[in-house]
């Protein structure tokens, strides 16, 4: 049993939470490559990438469980435990969503209509930017800890989160346009496919929503 001094310092959850976010964003990045493979109908490559996404999502889950296990009530933290755990949950949703999208598209070997490919590509890119911004925000956690969740660092992070909100708003606008375009085409496409296309559009938009939520959770954390 160690002396009081070494036993006093517990394992801070901050670094693991940052690592988790990095893995979650990696899933989003991989989704981009998946989409490209699906555009050229290379389902073998798509399968490989989907498996990579799944592996990463599993890693994220393991890390999440690990953080939860190492946060006993007796651990005194600079911010509320519940806030940290909810932030972690929200981050995890990002990885889940990326995996779901890939899984769904792979399962149906979904083909995006030629005229929509470019728009979908751009739309995904916007969501990816939102996720990337969320990663940037989360990477400021250790700096926030350094300043004791006060002062200039908080202002910096608030600025980053405002940018994140803006990026998410962008995806909302793009989503409306994309849906409108699909609406024009839906008569000439198999109905079931169309329904799933709408679903995929929603889900790619969800990536940006979840990213925005991550920023929102962090704001709550700082505020308390």
């Amino acid at each position, binding site marked *: *049993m*160690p*002396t*009081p*001094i*070494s*036993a*006093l*310092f*517990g*394992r*801070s*959850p*901050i670094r693991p939470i940052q690592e988790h976010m990095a893995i979650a964003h990696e899933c989003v990045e991989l989704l981009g490559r998946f989409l490209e493979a699906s555009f050229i109908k290379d389902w073998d490559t798509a399968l490989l990438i989907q498996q990579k996404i799944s592996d990463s999502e599993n890693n994220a889950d393991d890390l999440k469980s690990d953080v939860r296990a190492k946060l006993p009530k*007796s*651990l*005194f*933290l*600079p*911010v509320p435990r519940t806030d940290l755990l909810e932030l972690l949950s929200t981050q995890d949703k990002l990885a889940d969503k990326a995996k779901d999208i890939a899984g769904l598209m792979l399962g149906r070997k979904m083909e995006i209509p030629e005229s929509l490919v470019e728009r979908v590509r751009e739309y995904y890119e916007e969501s990816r930017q939102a996720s990337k911004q969320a990663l940037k925000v989360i990477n400021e956690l*250790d*700096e926030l*800890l*350094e*300043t*004791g*969740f*006060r*002062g*200039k*660092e908080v202002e910096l992070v608030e600025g980053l989160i405002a940018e994140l909100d803006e990026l998410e708003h962008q995806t909302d606008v793009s989503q409306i346009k994309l849906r409108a375009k699909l609406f024009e085409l839906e008569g000439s496409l198999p109905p079931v496919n169309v329904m799933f296309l709408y679903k995929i559009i929603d889900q790619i938009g969800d990536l940006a929503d979840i990213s925005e939520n991550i920023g929102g959770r962090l704001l709550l954390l700082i505020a308390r």
Partner: protein
Amino acid sequence: MSEIITQYGTIFLILACIFGFFMAWGVGANDVANAMGTSVGARAITIKQAILIAMVFEFAGAYLAGGEVTSTIRSGIIDIEKAGFADSPELLVYGMLSSLLAAGTWLLIASHNGWPVSTTHSIIGAIVGFAVVGISVDAVVWGKVWSIVASWVVSPMCSGIIAFFIFRSVQKLILDTSDPFKNAKKFVPFYIFMVGFIIAMVTLVKGLRHMGLDFSFPQSLAMAVGVGLFAMLLGTLLLRGIKEVPTDNEDFHFSSVEKVFGVLMIFTACSMAFAHGSNDVANAIGPLAAVNGVVQSGGQFAAKSGLPLWILLLGGGGIVAGLAMWGYKVIATIGRNITELTPSRGFAAELAAATTVVVASGTGIPVSTTHTLVGAVLGVGLARGIGALNLNVVGRIFVSWVVTLPVGASISIVFFFLFKAIFS
């Protein structure tokens, strides 16, 4: 003139020296690590540097500022008249010998099992134990004892509050500003000055009487300012080499800032070693000084005789020996286990703890350096400065209080009656 003293005086003195050295060795082997561990853990100093600093400053603290606490343990806890020592002075000798042996033994057992034990609580428990059971309840100066016990609760709280405010000042002046690095380089020299000044001031005002030096307040103030300025100068030289390197700061924006605080932490490491030496050496040499006093005077008691130099040297030497032979390993272990303490936090905790302990030393109150440091760290934690703190350590500290006092007392009582049987 006591017959037993005349007959066995030399043996008693030799035994006292051996036990005292044994106890001091134990302090150096186990307790110093708690004072130096945070500095090593924050990567402000290497283990080799920690050992060097500890050797020099533990000794300095013991020698320059350890007099008052030694006096308390030697003669402040036991009421010599009420204990009837005038008639049988050998009882005091037995008592002090058994206290040393008991505390040292308990320290050995606890260290072997990895239990955290306060050397201060052990010796106090042992002394009160033999006095209450071996002599009489009235033999103890209960007022003093209660004030000592109270200080064990007060000192961690006090250092916690001081640490809280020191860290808040760091946040306001440096970390929360728009250019932390620039402000760090600007303000850290003043913190370094504070370290030197506070430690010197308390020592000069309170502690040097046993050396026959008694400075007036203005003199002390002037000398303390001198020490502070010297430290500040040294610190400024060390800080020159630290530049803001952009690549260091990519991963963690505050890397360069923390390097600046690292220099500050070298000074607080010295102050921790000094403070620890000033308070804990007395645990070993207080009883030794008591025995020496009795033996040299042939059984008569001078109210407050001076503290012979050789006793302080023995105590300081014992601590250094324990540190060199075993303590460095414990420092290494603690340093390895602490992975998430940065210098900006570490220095605040150390400065608060060192200040509290040195004030206690100057006032003659034996406190636990370890618990005071724990209090200081919690103070920084309350300012949202630390990523995660195990609060069950606080519970464990309470338990150790409850266990150590009776155990120290019991072992001491056993040895007391043993000595009484052998020599009387």
